[in-house]
């Protein structure tokens, strides 16, 4: 019964991760291909993600209340709860990106994203690796995600500086650049949340707390 519940939680999280990945891919197509339909798809998928988030929360609550899990089982449930929350947040950021992407469609010929596609590429790579590390208990993959986080932060700073300098001289482009900044910020948050998922994987597998530059073993 207990094992069945744990498997159900992992299966539902896998489905959630798949849905959020699909949201991200559609959001990026919406943005870079100016594809309105892709954006609509993201808005639809968000409802599935919200429903699944509640279902996973409920399942985790049941396991905590009825099975009193210990040790690795306890860490798995705690991780599941946090990752469930992080995945839903990533879905929200995909929605934000789509909202800006829709605004940018009218700027079709004036857009110059420069670093944005690269930043999106690295963020997507982080997300996929983070989810895979969690699903396969792979702490090495989780460590790779953490290393990429600084790259994304630097890219965001570069985009921010460039957009500000454009806005200072080209007032017509303020709205365009605002949305580019907003997208960069949302990508940075997705990278951050992916890092959280990776850090939680290390916590789940090894009982080590590695966030905020710490390296502490639980209970010691």
């Amino acid at each position: 019964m207990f094992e069945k519940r744990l498997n159900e939680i992992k299966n539902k999280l896998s489905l959630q991760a798949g849905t959020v990945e699909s949201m991200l891919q559609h959001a990026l197509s919406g943005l870079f291909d100016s594809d309105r339909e892709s954006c609509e798809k993201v808005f639809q998928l968000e409802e599935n993600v919200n429903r699944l988030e509640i279902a996973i929360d409920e399942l985790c609550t049941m396991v905590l209340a009825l099975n009193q899990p210990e040790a690795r089982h306890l860490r798995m449930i705690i991780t599941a709860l946090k990752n469930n929350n992080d995945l839903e947040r990533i879905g929200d950021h995909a929605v934000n990106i789509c909202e800006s992407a829709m605004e940018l469609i009218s700027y079709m010929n004036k857009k110059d994203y420069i670093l944005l596609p690269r930043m999106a590429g690295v963020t997507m790579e982080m997300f996929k690796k983070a989810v895979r590390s969690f699903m396969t208990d792979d702490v090495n993959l989780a460590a790779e995600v953490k290393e990429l986080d600084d790259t994304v932060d630097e890219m965001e700073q570069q985009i921010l500086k460039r957009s500000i300098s454009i806005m200072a001289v080209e007032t017509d482009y303020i709205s365009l650049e605002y949305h580019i900044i907003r997208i960069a910020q949302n990508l940075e948050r997705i990278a951050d949340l992916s890092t959280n998922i990776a850090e939680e994987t290390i916590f789940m597998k090894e009982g080590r707390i590695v966030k905020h530059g710490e390296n502490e073993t639980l209970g010691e």
Partner: protein
Amino acid sequence: MADKVLSVRGLNAYYGNKKAVLDVNVDFYKNKITAIMGPSGCGKTTFLRCLNRIHEVNIEARARIEGDIFLNSENIARMHPILVRRRIGMVFQKPNPFPHMTIYDNVIAGYKLNGIKKKKHEFDTIVEQSLTRTALWGEVKDSLYDRGTFLSGGQQQRLCIARALAMNPDVILLDEPTSALDPIATAKIEELLNELKENVTIIIVTHNMAQAGRISDYTAFFYLGELLEYGTTEKLFTNPENEKTENFLTGRFG
């Protein structure tokens, strides 16, 4: 919702003038495990003993009941008490195999003591099936004609469950069946109950909240002889409606 096997209506149980169970109304569902919980002295064991008419046997304590209990719509007060106990078996807190009997005879004790005759090969089948269902066959098949008392506590308790199952009951009542057992023997019994519920309805009194959470589908919470809350274990353990249930579960009394 599953079918009702056992229905209790307006049940009061007394010891002399003292009321131990107060106006309980409840239905127990087929092929489900129902846990009965509550602080010491809340009447849960007395309630359980009413369900197969063992309570009334305690003549010295002037035990009696009021109200009705129906087994598949049949009022058990109108059935022969021996028949009631065959259809509603019971397993007690302390494993109690008959010490003078072999393992084989312990399993078919219900038949022997009631003078129910069967052919040897029929008894052989009942013994093997009952011991297999309690995961004991492999452990004792070579010592069926030894006395049951050499078995470990956990094995003895599984033998008692096999003895109850041998009568092919509709319901099995268990009164804290694992409180005298270590965690591994307890886990085996819990696993066993989970498998047995496919064929029999189980009602278990337990002091162990974690155990109720792990194995039961429904939970009934008793307090001062009253049934205060009854519902799915999932609901009761995560969001009970009664404040006393909440206080009991969170360790504020009991």
